[in-house]
């Protein structure tokens, strides 16, 4: 129900997985096929020469170290640090964006004058949980509100006792949500999650 970008999660796994697989297969080939090993030296020395020429072509004007190093370093390194820092920021923001999406307001209406009526989701959540408390079929209940494509949706999670019929509980919770809709005058989509919980002995 939350905002997690699942496509991005799977894309990251796919890209990193493919890179690792290629590296692994490459290492296996290296270990087993002598032609690969023989071909490594020329390849690497070409690459090393290319990298060395890039570094020499981009000298740093002012030396960074004190006392200054023997030969001038390259600003390509500074660019590399900047790129790495940007990657770190992207990854951290990617991690922090997992699981967001809860909202505070379930309905609001602009008045004819200067006022507005705002119904906080806490009202709906607490009303639902209150109506469900004390039911013998339920161990516990919990409600939260999410924005799904901009539409507020209530999620009601109920923990059923062992052996209770999910259809009966669903009908009952459905009825409570209907009453909530009648009370608020707006029809809020809802998800009812019937869970077994960790302990579900009667």
């Amino acid at each position, binding site marked *: 129900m939350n905002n997690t970008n699942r496509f991005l999660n799977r*894309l990251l796994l796919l890209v990193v997985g493919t890179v*690792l697989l290629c*590296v692994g297969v490459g290492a296996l080939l290296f270990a087993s096929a002598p032609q690969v090993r023989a071909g490594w030296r020329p390849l690497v020395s070409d690459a090393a020469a290319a990298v060395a020429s890039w570094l020499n072509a981009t000298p740093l004007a002012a030396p960074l170290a004190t006392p200054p190093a023997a030969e001038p370093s390259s600003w390509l390194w500074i660019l590399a640090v900047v790129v790495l820092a940007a990657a770190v920021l992207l*990854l951290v923001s990617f991690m922090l964006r997992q699981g967001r999406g809860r909202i505070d307001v379930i309905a609001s209406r602009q008045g004819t004058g200067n006022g507005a009526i705002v119904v906080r989701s806490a009202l709906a959540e607490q009303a639902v949980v209150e109506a469900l408390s004390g039911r013998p079929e339920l161990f516990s209940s919990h409600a939260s509100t999410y924005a799904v494509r901009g539409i507020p949706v209530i999620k009601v999670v109920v923990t059923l006792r*062992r052996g209770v019929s999910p259809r009966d509980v669903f009908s009952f919770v459905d009825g409570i949500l209907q009453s909530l809709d009648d009370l608020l005058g707006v*029809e809020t989509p809802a998800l009812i999650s019937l869970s077994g919980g960790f302990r579900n002995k009667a």
Partner: protein
Amino acid sequence: MSGETIGVRRSERQRRGRSTQSTYARIRRRETHSSRSTPAIVVASVLCLLCVWAATEITLALLDAPALVASPATVGTALTNLDSVPSGYLFVAGVVAALIGGSLIALAVSAGRRARHLLSSDSHAAVVDDNVIASAVARRAAQTAGISPDSVRVTVSRRFATVRVIPSSGTPVDAAAVESAAKAQLDEFGIVPPLRPRVRIASEGKVGA
């Protein structure tokens, strides 16, 4: 009534019917499949650490300070001398990397269905844990067979609810009755994708109650 309203107004339900249905379709899909958040966060953290380490090493090298683990020059030299690394190490490293890479690819492309089913409904979306269905079926099966609930174990897979009965010695169990009771119960629940019951009576019973 003037002004904007957040939330679907009852009178607009017909008009908004299609978008509510697509909202529910999205919810149903997301609630029954894994988000892959945990592996993604693990992978992202490892990448983060690697980037931080690499940036630190480069900065230390620029400042002509001693390296933490390995300076860029050391890494470059090690790569150049890769062909002198014993093939045993490379083989092991290759296998480990390939296995991890393969697992990540599998995680990325597989469906990741959670142990849940949907309840068919016109009004709201409903998702049920499989163990809830299993314990309800087990209770009805135990009642039908006239045995204690501890002697019944139910496993719910995507399309089947398998009822395993361990009979007590001397008491025969009517498998057909149990199966038809379970079928009636599952049909009444209205589960999507539909569950069909299968009954297995253990060949060895329990002594006593």
